[in-house]
């Protein structure tokens, strides 16, 4: 069982101005975020965590980027055509995030659910920062975000990511290779450069946001074990 005594609970807060008209003290559930590149094992770990949480009697709900009812289809279209400039794309993603925050995450937390987020604002910020956008602007933009109860960044070497992505789909994704940046015309080189830049940016953001960096080069079971242990501590309200 969860212990929800306010005295032991970490103080709820938004990173910045937050969302208007939200009562933070009503958000009884927990928000757990898993971050990492494609091929870091994010989805696998989240599926395993949901399994484990539900078996233990917790109600869990999953959210992820580009899944809002509001703009997900338009966002998909824009990305396929690669027609939006960077500020626009950035704000479009922020709209998608804000929609899910307001309509899924906050209501679920209010209802006492454990919300598992398959990526959160950190990926969005890192992508934009790698593309040269202003960090101060991004921090203001994502000041709407609720501070999670725990954030895990699944860190994997870029070379290992290449292997995992190729063995899964025999190709490297255009965006996950940062091909829009013109780092290299060769998708393989571009992927390595882009993923290394992303990792460096995550390390930089970690200093501000203090999330857990998890070595996800290891086999799945090892990572699951570490995540469970840390999440259990959060649920026990340490």
């Amino acid at each position: 069982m969860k212990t929800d005594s306010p005295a032991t609970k970490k103080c709820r807060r938004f990173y910045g101005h937050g969302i208007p008209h939200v009562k933070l003290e009503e958000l009884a559930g927990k928000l757990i975020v898993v971050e990492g590149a494609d091929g870091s094992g994010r989805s696998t770990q989240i599926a395993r965590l949901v399994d484990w949480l539900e078996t233990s009697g917790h109600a869990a709900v999953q959210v992820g980027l580009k899944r809002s009812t509001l703009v997900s289809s338009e966002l998909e279209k824009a990305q396929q055509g690669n027609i939006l400039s960077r500020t626009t794309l950035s704000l479009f993603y922020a709209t998608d995030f804000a929609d899910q925050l307001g309509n899924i995450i906050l209501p679920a937390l209010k209802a006492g659910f454990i919300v598992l987020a398959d990526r959160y604002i950190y990926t969005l910020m890192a992508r934009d920062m790698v593309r040269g956008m202003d960090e101060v602007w991004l921090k203001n933009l994502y000041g709407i975000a609720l501070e999670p109860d725990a954030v895990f960044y699944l860190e994997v070497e870029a070379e290992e990511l290449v292997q995992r992505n190729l063995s899964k789909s025999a190709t490297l994704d255009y965006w996950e290779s940062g091909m829009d940046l013109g780092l290299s015309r060769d998708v393989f080189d571009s992927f390595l450069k882009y993923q290394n830049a992303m990792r460096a940016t995550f390390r930089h953001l970690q200093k501000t946001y203090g999330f857990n960096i998890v070595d996800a080069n290891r086999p799945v079971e090892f990572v699951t074990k570490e995540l469970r242990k840390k999440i259990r501590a959060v649920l026990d309200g340490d």
Partner: protein
Amino acid sequence: MKTFAELNFPGRLIAVEGLDGSGKSTQIYLLKRWLEAEGIKVYFSEWNSSELVKSATSKAKKRQLLTPTTFSLIHATDFADRYERHLLPLLRAGYVVLCDRYVFTAFARDVTRGCPPDWVRGLYSFAAQPDLTFFFKADLKVSLNRILEGRPKLKFFEAGMDLRLSADPYESFRIFQGRILEQYMAMSSEFNFIVMDANQNVEKQQSLVRKTVGEKINLSKFKRRLPLPLPPAARPEDKSKEAEEDVAA
């Protein structure tokens, strides 16, 4: 916030702001016609009109899906798309760009909806200040009547119904517009609004607009080197669509 002139852009940006029903769209349309006739390179851009974002916005508005935060963000997305794809290149190329509503619409509306002012201004901090901003100030009653007489069916967000100000859409609209007007007036001097008396007749206002533009902007610098044929007049069906969407928030 620096103007495009201060940022050494070759082009100039003129914006009109005001409540729904203040007559600002008529005025900027007439300004556009004059500039075109003078052979000036001119481009007109309207709030909430970027093709891609529009489909999301109209869907969201119909289904009443928007929170103050997503309302604000989706309009910022629309603005950014127009700003980066149209306004900036045109201003680099020495155009006179006319905007029916600019960031001040967001500053006034989103704050009225409860978004923190600093946050909203931060969102739009990538945008430079217009070289001229005309604010059309009509008596609240006059603009309300213009809207309420002509189009008796108010849309949900347009009436500010999401703010739960009143169960009656007309009453809600009145309160909402009044609050937006207060926000506009509060930023008027900060952003050098040229406040126009929108209770005057159309011709008087327009001649003042043209005079002001002529005085503040050296228009001879913005003429086309080779005259182009005037663009064809908007088709009638397009016009009615524009009029319908003018008020849409």
